């Protein structure tokens, strides 16, 4: 497996994530899309750090680790907010949450 493979995969992940975020009619799926995006980034970092930098330099992997942590935190907050939305709007369809506009 060469760097290109990893990059292609992460690119696909990223695109899928964006696609999900733009099209899904369910807040949870949007969250999943976001997770895909973040993970594609992590994959990138890991891959780059493996192929582009000297093997003793693992800063890339470290970034990836942090990325995972932050993604988790983000997911937590997101879910909490989705709960609030559900409480207020009785639905988690993003297109129904549009009282603020103009």
């Amino acid at each position, binding site marked *: 497996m060469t760097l290109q493979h990893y990059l292609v995969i992460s690119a696909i992940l990223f695109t899928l994530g964006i696609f999900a*975020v*733009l*099209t899904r009619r369910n807040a949870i799926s949007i969250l999943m899309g976001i997770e895909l995006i973040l993970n594609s980034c992590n994959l990138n970092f890991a891959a780059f750090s493996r192929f582009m930098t000297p093997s003793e330099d693992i800063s890339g992997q470290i970034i990836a680790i942090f990325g995972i942590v932050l993604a988790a935190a983000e997911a937590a907050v997101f879910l909490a907010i989705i709960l609030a939305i559900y409480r207020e709007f009785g639905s988690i369809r*993003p*297109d129904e*949450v*549009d009282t603020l*506009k*103009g």
Partner: protein
Amino acid sequence: MVVPLISIILLCPLAAFAIFGLLGLANRRFPRQDYLSTAAMLIALACSFLLLREVVPSPEAHTVDWLSLGGVTFSMGFYLDSVTVIMLIVVTLVSSLVHIFSMGYMHGDPRYPRFFAYLSLFSFSMLFLVVSDNLLGIYIGWELVGLCSYLLIGFWFEKDSAANACKKAFLTTRVGDVGMFIGMMMLFKQFKTLSLYGDGIFTRITNPEYFTADATGIVWLSIAGVLIFCGAIGKSAQMPLHTWLPDAMEGPTPVSALIHAATMVAAGVYLTARMFPILTETSSLVIAYVGGITALVAATIAIVRFDIKRVLAYSTISQLGYMMLAIGAGSYVAGLFHLTTHAFFKALLFLGSGSVIHAFHAMHAHAHDDEHDHEHADSEEHILGSEIPPDQDMRNMGGLRHKMPITFVTMLIATLSISGVPFIFSGFWSKDAILGGVLGRAMEWNSAHHYILFGMALCAAGITAFYMFRLIFMTFFGEPRNQEMHDMAHESPKSMTVPLLILAFLSLPVVNILWFNEAYVKPPPQPHLHAPQHAYIAPDGNTGGKGYAVSLFGVSEAVAAEEEGGHSTDGTHADDGHHGHGPAHTIAMVLSIIVAGLGIFLSWLFYHRRTLSAESVATTCRPLYNLFWHKYYFDEFYDGVLVTLTVWKARLFAQFDGSVVDGIVNGVGFVTRDLLAAFTGAFDNRVVDGIVNRVAQVTWAVGGRIRRIQTGAIQTYLFVVLAGIVLLILIFRAL
């Protein structure tokens, strides 16, 4: 000695007015404003007589810096020569007499004191105009007298007719003044000064550094001269700006006598005379023609008037035309001579008519309610819209000579004088001098122009005699036509008759000869005209005087002598000058006597013997009568233009935008008002302002659009983000 005297002359009337103004501010009145003003005038009169001696040695200018810039300096000052002094005396004299007359005439008017204050202001302005030594000063006085005439014509401003008349007068003269101002600008650009004497225009014109009298130079100078003359056209009511003067008769009669007969309207002549040195052949000719036409036309109009004051008004216009003609034809002295004589007898005529009007006791009615109902208002006048107040309608008069002898006698003298009855009446001499001058010029140059001009002058003379006697006959002779008014009539009080007598005395030649003697009036040289054929206008100076000094004993020799004097400067034309001019005055005198006699005789037949009936003549030559009656349709013309323009306006706005725009003025106004003003006004509202508002609206609308993108749906936002990124990348890929 000169400066203090003149200062007194100027300051007295000014003070009289100032006192009124200042007290008026505090809503107070000087107990006897009339005495105050009259006293001021009398002092001025005395001083003017003192000046009579002062001036003789040599004309001189006394100036102070009035407005000094880095480069140029405008000075104000007095210039004192024989002409100035004559004008001073004429003005102060007539003015004082009018003051006295008014005490009787205006008695009991609610604004009695104000009237005298205005008179004082006017006298001041007029005197300032007369003594000024520079164009700027003249212009200042010029406008100030205009203001006074505005105030005095509109003195009974409750009458709409008066209100209209005063506005018309101011605006019409203002048109002329603008021409004058343009002329002043031209002169200033050329000569870098507006002073006339000292190191002024008249000296710099000889200085090649400022001006060279080559072809272009002369053309330029002619234009400038004519433009300056425009001012005179306005003020002296020459064609085509004469229409305001008859309307000005809405003012009190003493005002008509002082301002619109004796002094202010003569200011135009005075100005032209002052500018004599820079008048070129062309501009002189223009002036002469304007004068001649005016003289003739105005006279013909006067024939058919019934309003006693309007007759006099038109006669004034025509006489002023005479003076212009004289100066235009180079008879400088004759012009000024006629100015002075005319000042007296015309003032006399007006005051006389005033006393007649006063006799009808209608003055107060006159002042307060403008009655539109009186039996004599005939249809034609309704059409014209200008009704004759009954107390001024000659058809109400007649047979007054028994009722008011003094008025009758004095007015008769004046009439004889104006009609040019030889030899004991001043009018004869002055008018004859003009005729002689013009004919002389014609014969000497044998120029067709001057023959034509002479013809005009002659006809005018005849017609003048005719309508003046028509006035006398209709007013004082025959049977009273309106009995109850006739019964009311009575001789006027002393305060009014005394001035009449004095003026009558002044209408005798003797008095005038006192000034037009030997070394007195001298036509100034016209230095820029060095071409030989102009030499006759550049005499050595004392000739003008000589002519009239001896004129009592025989005009022809005198004039011959004058011409000789004229040619002694350059021998070239001495002979034909002699031959050409010897007979000139004789012929002129004979002819003038004949036409005058003819005129008088005819009017005797028409209006006294009634062997001939005016009506029948009128009907036989209807068109001509109508022409005269409608004053050559001048007013109709102006109104017509106005109407058509109004129509255009309507169409124009129909296209401009559907509705009639606010800011369109209704009612009759100045010609340009309805069209241009309303147009620009609307343009300002709709277009200029409109554009601005449109910009605002567009901005706002765009704001609205941007708002709509903000749908509130989060996924739209995200899509915009992605789109934005892609767009940015694409754009900068391209760059």
